[in-house]
């Protein structure tokens, strides 16, 4: 599906001691996660445990308060330098942050398609605005990707004319058209009717098979078991447990993981 793979070495994503406060509310309390290139990491955890926040920090939709996030070896959001001889972080200009984000695709629970553009328009827009592709190049690429997600007959439909599953597939196509090195999914199937979940998971399974690095927040345990290389279980803003799906889902070592799995299974 997506041939290009980053040349770099080391992990694709590395969160090191990440903390995040919303006012007094300490939402992330020292998160350490490593996502190897080409792997799929599924993040599980109870509501409010900070899964979405952690994901949003990775592409700088939220600013972190402590720690560091590296994507493809690059520090997100800051430039390392020195001031008066001291090593210091300099906040990146919004334009530089936008450039960092362009390499990371994100899919939202509520799709967030642009309602005033057709499916095709949604997929074309950022290719032209961000990557500077010509309209016709972007158009060709968009049609090819929409075809991959099974929507070649829906290109001229507006989001309001599509089912939830179709909308989410357009959203995935929109992110993929940017040729990202990393895809983030925040509960991509939680807003869907049960019978539409399968078509979205199928697209994600294909994507994982093509070697895309993915971080997926989901409650779909079956998907985690089948597709994930790594499962991260979060609670109260901390990583309680992580490992292979067999280990975390099959033989969890922590009581909180066992309680959670007992509730969702």
């Amino acid at each position, binding site marked *: 599906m997506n041939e290009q793979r980053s040349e770099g070495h080391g992990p694709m994503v590395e969160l090191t001691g990440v903390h995040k406060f919303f006012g007094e509310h300490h939402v992330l309390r020292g998160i350490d996660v490593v996502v190897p290139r080409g792997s799929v990491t599924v993040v599980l955890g109870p509501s409010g445990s900070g899964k979405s926040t952690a994901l949003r920090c990775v*592409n700088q*939709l939220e600013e972190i308060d402590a720690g560091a996030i590296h994507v493809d070896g690059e520090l997100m959001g800051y430039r390392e330098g020195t001031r008066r001889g001291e090593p210091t972080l300099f906040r990146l200009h*919004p*334009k530089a942050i*936008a*450039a*960092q*984000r*362009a*390499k*990371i*695709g*994100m899919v*939202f629970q*509520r799709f*967030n*398609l*642009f*309602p*005033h*553009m*057709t499916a095709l328009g949604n997929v074309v*827009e*950022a290719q032209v*605005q*961000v990557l500077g592709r010509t309209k016709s190049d972007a158009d060709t690429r968009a049609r090819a990707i929409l075809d991959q997600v099974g929507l070649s*007959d*829906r290109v*001229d*439909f*507006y*989001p*309001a*004319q599509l*089912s*939830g*599953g*179709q*909308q989410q597939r357009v*959203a995935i196509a*929109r*992110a993929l058209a*940017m040729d990202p090195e990393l895809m983030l999914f925040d509960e991509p199937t939680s*807003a*869907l*009717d049960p*019978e*539409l979940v399968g*078509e979205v998971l199928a697209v994600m399974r294909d994507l994982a098979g093509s070697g895309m690095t993915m971080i997926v927040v989901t409650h779909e345990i079956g998907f985690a078991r089948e597709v994930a290389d790594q499962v991260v279980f979060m609670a109260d803003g901390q990583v309680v447990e992580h490992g292979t799906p067999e280990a975390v889902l099959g033989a969890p070592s922590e009581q909180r993981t066992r309680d959670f799995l007992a509730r969702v299974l």
Partner: protein
Amino acid sequence: MSAGPAEPPAGVRRIHAVPVRYPGRWVSAVVVLVLAAMAVHALLTNPKFAWPTVGQYLFATPVLRGVGWTLALTVGSMAIAVVLAITLAVMRDSTNPVLRAVAWFYIWFFRGTPIFTQLVFWGLISVLYPRLSLGIPFGPEFWSFSTKDVFTAAVAALIGLALNEAAYLAEIVRAGLESVDRGQQEAAKALGMKDGPILRRIVLPQAMRVIVPPTGNETISMLKTTSLVLAVPFTLDLQFATNAIGNRIFQPVPLLLVAALWYLAITSVLMVGQHYLERYYGRGFDPTRNAGPQRSGRGPRQAAINAARTTPEISTVDDMGRPAGGWG
């Protein structure tokens, strides 16, 4: 909901029921028609309205010139005001506290003083500041000009109307921008788009749906506010022109009618324009309308595809639990 009912397959008998009758609608239609006829009759037969005089002056040169100036002032000042208002609205939501303060002050000042006073001021500016210059503040001047050469009565009227209107429109634009779901900005940001394109391409087009109707209202209101430009004084607009004629021939009533007829005509044209603007910016928001009806040829074809129901996976309920099928 489809364009034409599809031919039902064999064995399906379409319902041909007698529709519900609404006799009240007929009664009310008759009552309204009678009242309207009485009103028209009372207008046309009253000699005090002097309809021949109305006809004589309706297309008189000074009247037509007045219509032209009134239109130019309305369209021109609204165009300037819209651009300024979008700038002000963005400034008010800016992270830069200086910009926020400037926008707040602007809106406070121009909404807080009467438009008549503002117009008088713009008319007087060449008396208050006979020469204006460009240069370093409190330092040397590079270029200066005589104010009355630049601030002619027409320019003063245009700027006076536009600056005042921008303050009101800024609040409308701000409400429009706030009506757009936060998720839209986040999705655009996540795609790597910068703030400028996000505003222009994603947020503003959606905000327009909320901005256009009250702005249409403001435009129609502006059409009549232009009559205040006599404060500048600017004396070529429709209201002043018809007034002058009416006073000269001692027949104010028919000339008031001339002005009223023209204002009505222009308002009607503006309303048609507003209708098309609303339709344009409403695209994608009304699922009962088919994809791309504004673009050539696709509308009917899409309707046919939908009606044929050959495309799979049309769910009966969308993700928010609303019935979703049957758009074809």
